[in-house]
């Protein structure tokens, strides 16, 4: 690769252009970072300051973990974290397996009923089932209070399948055709050619699935009656203050809590951090080109 090229072979831009780009990126990052700074600061600022500044603090006067301690007390959050990790890992794995297989099948013109099935997937994307009928289906399936109720109803997303299929169809057909002529089975083509060439999109769709499993609380609300089986987001949801509902007699138990905004922000951060940790591992896969190597190899 010559010095005049980017890692992926694009020509190198001129320096005024690079300066402009740097400026744009700096501004964009600042627009995101500053509000986040406020969220973190509010979660660790002392109660008096949070109240004095009306519930949003940009620069904390001092540092306290009271809000986090208050949320983490009792060990409920820790056990909910385990449920969330389990649901996210198992769910994402099952989703990726079923979705890539489905998308690959749909990308093959010789799939029986291909056209019908593509429309079948597409239409599922445009109609939302009602929550009562969904509850009845899950109940009939005997999944109430089971971890599968948090996975199976959202296992396949029509959107993700259609995007995967579009990527699979864009792969150069020479490779797969050649393999077919050599007598490779569909399974071999799928696992040895299509998937390795689609690492980037598979990583992205995996991230989409993982994040949606991680953020989901509504299925847990409806299908899980035993709070010890609740995922993190559902447990944290309990803190969402329903204004006007909390009366004085209900406040007896919340006495001396840290400022409400601090708790809200601490919850936000606790809910975000674990899933953010996954990102760097996936990121490599979709920021680097993979195709050339594979084709040449």
């Amino acid at each position, binding site marked *: 690769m010559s010095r005049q090229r980017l890692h*992926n*072979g*694009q*020509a190198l831009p001129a320096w005024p252009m690079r300066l402009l780009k740097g400026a*744009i990126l700096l501004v*964009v*990052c600042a*627009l*995101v970072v500053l509000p*986040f700074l406020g969220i973190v600061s509010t979660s660790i600022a002392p109660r008096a300051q949070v109240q004095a500044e009306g519930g949003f603090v*940009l620069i904390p006067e001092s540092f306290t973990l009271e809000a986090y301690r208050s949320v983490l007390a009792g060990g409920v959050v820790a056990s909910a974290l385990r449920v969330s990790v389990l649901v996210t890992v198992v769910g994402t794995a099952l989703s990726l397996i*079923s*979705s890539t297989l*489905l998308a690959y*099948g749909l990308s093959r013109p*010789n*799939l*029986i*009923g291909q056209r019908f*099935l593509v*429309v*079948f*997937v*597409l*239409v*599922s*994307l*445009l*109609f*939302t*089932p*009602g929550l*009562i*009928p*969904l509850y009845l*289906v*899950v109940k009939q399936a005997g999944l109430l209070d089971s971890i599968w109720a948090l996975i*199976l*109803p959202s296992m*396949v997303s*029509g959107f993700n*399948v259609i995007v995967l299929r579009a*990527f699979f*169809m864009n792969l150069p057909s020479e490779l797969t055709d050649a393999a077919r002529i050599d007598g490779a089975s*569909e*399974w071999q083509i*799928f696992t040895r050619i299509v998937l390795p060439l689609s690492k980037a*999109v598979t*990583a*992205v769709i995996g991230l989409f699935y993982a994040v949606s499993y991680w*953020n989901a609380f509504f299925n847990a609300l409806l299908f899980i009656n035993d709070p010890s089986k609740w995922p993190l987001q559902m447990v944290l949801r309990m803190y969402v203050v329903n204004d006007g509902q909390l009366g004085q007699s209900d406040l007896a138990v919340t006495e001396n809590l840290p400022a409400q905004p601090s708790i809200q922000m601490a919850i*936000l951060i606790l809910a975000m951090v674990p*899933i953010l940790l996954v990102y*760097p591992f996936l*990121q490599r896969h*979709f*920021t680097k*080109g993979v*195709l*050339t190597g594979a084709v040449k190899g």
Partner: protein
Amino acid sequence: MGRPTTDDGVTQSTTKTAQTTASETRRAEPVGKRPGGARGRLRWRARLRRDGILTVFVLPGVLALLVFQYLPLLGNVIAFQDYLPFLGIADSPWVGLKNFEILVNGDPAFVRALVNTLIITAVQTVFVFPIPIAFALLLNSLLSERVKRVVQSITYLPHFLSWVVVVAVFQHVLGGSGMINNWLRTHGHETLDVITNPDAFIALITSQVVWKDTGWATILFLAVLSTIDTELYEASSVDGASRTRQLWHVTLPAMRGIIVLLLILKLGDSLTVGFEQILLQQNAVGRHASEVLDTYVYNNGVVGGNWGVSAAVGLVKGVVGVALVLGANRLAHAFGEAGVYRR
């Protein structure tokens, strides 16, 4: 090329669903190129032997959609009922098309809501949709892999905030008693009315969407960019192509398919614009500026717990969505694009 499986269970279930799928297919293509008959059936069997394995591939996904998407959709018959959960579908009274009246009652507020919805959809398609593409191109052109990753890791953070939080953050910063205006006021300057200004509403919600989801949407486009064969760039560079020419002749053509696909899917969602986001800010600017289809239905039916109305509107939106997607898909074909599916 389905290999015989050693596991009996697998073989059985395979055959069974293969038949189901085949019959579904026949239903879906009633005027297929080759009508049935003895020859047709023979062909099916041959195809099944050859392509049955693909049916096994799609089976788990299709089943999941069938059970957890389509089966509950049957429950949407409550669109024709005054449905009450404690009575159930069996005992709730049937009301014909009454629940659909909310969409055709000619209420000026409804027309206004529809117009607002379409304007917001148009604005967001024009301004919001291309931004992640441009941002992905910008990131992709960066020299340093590390800068690229850091920027990307930062910009996708807001996606993890709920709308309640995003709206609150915007208010803390831009509100009449927010940080910027408080600073302006104490320094003797005029204040900016952003949050409670009906004229700025669309700009406000659009910028909130951009702030929240640009980084996230960029990820998919970066994945597309990563699939571009680097040899294409190298070859074009050798030919002396400039960066702009590379963009037009290599990069964008490679992204075109997925861009068209996402546009079509977005079109199917035309009647849905940020319900939570807008509802949270309706009081600030009033309903005239902010009422959209979903909030209108919410304010006029759902508040009283009217499940039938929300099912009815869901059905209509679904049908409109299907029509729009299929129409757009045809249009895409006319321009030589693959669209969602090829014909």
